[in-house]
């Protein structure tokens, strides 16, 4: 029973580019195990191989190496049309010559289900996605959000073992994107649909996912829950990619004992807990999120000068120059804490318990 529902082993995709006979590695040794009902997001900058991975799961690209198991069956050689996966496309890919009903019924009709059953299931799903009674509408007249719902219904109605999403919200405006995000997550949890979702939008990934797979240049950088990814990034890339702005400092481990590590930077020594894998002499990168720095007028571990202030109401963002480095700092609740002005001298304090240390290779 401990067997994963969707299991991907050493998946690799190499392309030979058309012009020069050069091999391009799009995805390299991708490994993932998914439980039934889990929602996993592949997150990364464009060109990181996330869409290629998704298309290999869907059967649109054949892997160069590696294996994909779905419900304990190897599906590598099963063509897309016989695979028990359904995709929601970035461009929605609604068939423009069919109405909503025909679009949604397409997959069911191919399976030669009785007419009555097709009708019943399509109507049920249209009701679910909030398009009840609109079956006769041509898809060309729908708004972006409605098209998105049809695309979702068309994939879900077939009750696939895995639902695949290829950046489905990237064509919607910000408000609609926000609403659809919640909508997708609710339906997914209600029906316990195993889902793989591709996006480059970290906020989207954070809100939707049980776990996130951060990819870069064809390789997995880290797999983890949204909290793990944000709070304990495994690599500098993840630390930098996740979050709005991230401050980095380099330090050196000067004392390592069981349960307590001394790290030196700016000619001062600070104690950290929970990094038992570090040894004395190791170089480390400190990941300091903007909200982990506090500003005060009087005392701190270092002094700096405010160079930029952006007031957003619920928070203030500062750029502070300290020790020849610019720091991004976010201070919540400015009404209570007050706002510094450009040119003011301030003192920085780090929330050492939140700062994360990455060992440098």
């Amino acid at each position, binding site marked *: 029973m401990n067997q994963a529902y969707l299991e991907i082993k050493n998946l690799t995709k190499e392309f030979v580019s058309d012009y020069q006979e050069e091999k391009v590695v799009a995805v390299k040794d991708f490994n993932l195990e998914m439980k039934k009902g889990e929602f996993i997001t592949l997150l990364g900058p464009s060109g990181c191989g996330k869409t290629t991975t998704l298309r290999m799961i869907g059967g*649109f690209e054949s892997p160069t190496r590696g294996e994909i198991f779905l419900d304990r069956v190897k599906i590598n050689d099963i063509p897309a049309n016989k695979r028990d996966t359904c995709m929601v496309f970035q461009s929605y890919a609604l068939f423009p010559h069919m109405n909503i009903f025909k679009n949604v019924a397409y997959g069911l009709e191919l399976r030669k289900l009785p007419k009555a059953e097709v009708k019943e299931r399509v109507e049920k799903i249209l009701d679910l996605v909030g398009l009840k009674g609109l079956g006769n509408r041509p898809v060309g007249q729908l708004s972006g959000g409605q098209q998105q719902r049809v695309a979702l219904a068309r994939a879900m109605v077939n009750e696939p073992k895995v639902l695949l999403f290829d950046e489905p919200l990237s064509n919607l405006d910000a408000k609609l994107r926000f609403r659809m995000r919640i909508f997708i997550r609710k339906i997914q949890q209600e029906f316990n649909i195993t889902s793989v979702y591709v996006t480059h939008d970290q906020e989207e990934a954070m809100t939707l996912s049980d776990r996130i797979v951060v990819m870069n240049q064809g390789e997995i950088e880290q797999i983890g829950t949204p909290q793990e990814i944000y709070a304990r990034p495994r690599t500098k890339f993840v630390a930098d990619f996740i979050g709005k702005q991230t401050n980095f400092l380099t330090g050196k481990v000067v004392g390592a004992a069981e349960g307590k590590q001394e790290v030196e930077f700016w000619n001062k020594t600070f104690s950290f807990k929970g990094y038992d894998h570090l040894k004395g002499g190791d170089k480390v990168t400190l990941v300091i999120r903007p909200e982990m720095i506090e500003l005060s007028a009087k005392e701190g571990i270092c002094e700096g000068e405010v160079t930029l202030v952006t007031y957003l109401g619920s928070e203030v963002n500062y750029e502070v120059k300290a020790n020849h480095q610019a720091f991004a700092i976010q201070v919540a609740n400015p009404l209570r804490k007050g706002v510094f002005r450009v040119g003011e001298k301030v003192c920085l304090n780090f929330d050492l318990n939140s700062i994360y240390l990455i060992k440098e290779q």
Partner: protein
Amino acid sequence: MIQSKRFAAYLKRIPSDIKKLLKEPFLLTGILLVNVFLFLFIVLPLFKIFQLSFEVEGHFSLRIFYELMSKSYNVRPLIHSLTLGTAVAILGTLIGFIFAYAITRVDIPWKRFFSVTATFPIIAPPFMMSLSAILLFGKQGFVSKMILQNVVQFKIYGFYGLLVVETLTYFSTAYLTLYGVLQAIDPALEDAALDLGASKGKVFRSITLPLATPGIASAILLIFSQSLADFGNPMILAGNYTILATQAYLTIVGMYDMKGGAALAILLLIPSLIAFCVQKYWVSRKSYVTVTGKPSSTRIKMDHPVTKYSIFGLCLILASIIFLFYGMVFFGSLVKLWGVNHTLTLNNYRHVFTVGWEFIKDTLLLSSIATPIAGILGMIIAFLVVRKQFPGKRLMELVSLLTFAVPGTVVGIGYILAFNQPPLVLTGTAAIIILLFIFRDLAVGVQTGIAELQQIDPSIEEASTDLGADSARTFRKITLPLITPAFYSGLAFTFVKCMTAISAVIFVVSGKWNLITVAILGSVENSDLAQAAAFSVVIIIFILLALWLIQFLVDRMGGGRKIKFEKPEAIQSI
């Protein structure tokens, strides 16, 4: 209701539009001049034909048509033209579809080769296929005499001969149209169908084919009008299978019956206009193919060995046939006396460049004068139509596109009717040929220009006006550079059309100014097949040189964009 409201709003706007125009004298003069030209060289000739055939003793009458229709030798060409047009359209579209589908959807080798082969007929003189048909299957033919020893007789003169050569000539139109349509279908649509469980065959039947249907209809209509307008092939191969385009010519030139010829021209014009209107105002509106941002991914190509190699084989056979036809003309141009003495010689070329030099010189000169004028005029009209407000704008667009729809024979007859008497006597001059070239091919430049301009944000031009430039300066400094690629494509295409034109110009050539295409036709009629072949090869060489030159200029100035014959409408025949 909406129509009449819109019309009322339009009427209301006219005075303010005119007021605005009066403030820009340069623009106003431009519009007036263009209108005068369009009227003189497109509308007037057509009007003359109608006048001649409908007017009896100063009154409107349909008598000439009763007379025509009562004689079977006049009805027959109409039926023949329509039958042939339909057959060529269907067969040509089928072949075009096979190539387009193979290249866009199947993982076949040699795609570039097939694509070049399928577009080549566009730059070749259209009647080269007929010449080749005689070289291959005529009495002295390579296949009929040399290989089969005259055991089998081929009936190349008549319907079947015409069907084969016109199909091979005009399927390129279908190929380009359908290539564009098939390429524009979002790959995600087919992926989605596959994803939902459809087999490749089912995807083709339920998604690809329905989405391509408007394109297919378009291709059929375009080829139908090309076949109707074809002049060179039926002149050579029709035999007793009389065709409207050539019959109108023979009625005028052979029987000196202007009125009868004009009436036949109108019989030819009507189905062409219907096909044009159906294509432009109905089929193209049915199109589902829309440009929606970036295509989401690369297309999955069919790679099942059986499908792949059977389609590859089919393409190979078709390509071989095309090569055989064109190759035979090349071979024929190097032979001493076709059918009798097959020793290789360059004598034909010597003849072409000595005796035929006048033809070559005239053709090159007149084409080179007409091409840039047609190109610039086309861009100006496109600019006026897309960017400016003035009364009669839609009419201007329609008239400039009308030349697509009017068969060359009709235009040719119109020109001799209109410019044979004062106030404008042009018969026998170089000017009439140049004018014919310009206004025959104007539509190409207009069409490509309109398409290109609609993609350029008007605010770029507004910025220029805002900074103090007037209309003329903005056009010259901003618009023209932006539409340069379309301009050069238009030039390339216009030049090809001028070099290979026959149907209209044959009416206006003279002893003083003559063209290669007319010379080829003459050579074929005198059974000087080898010389005709040499002339054809020379035309092709000059066209390739010109295309290379224009591409070179584009590379130097236009940022390395490729000249493309991308507008399927642009391939409308002469």
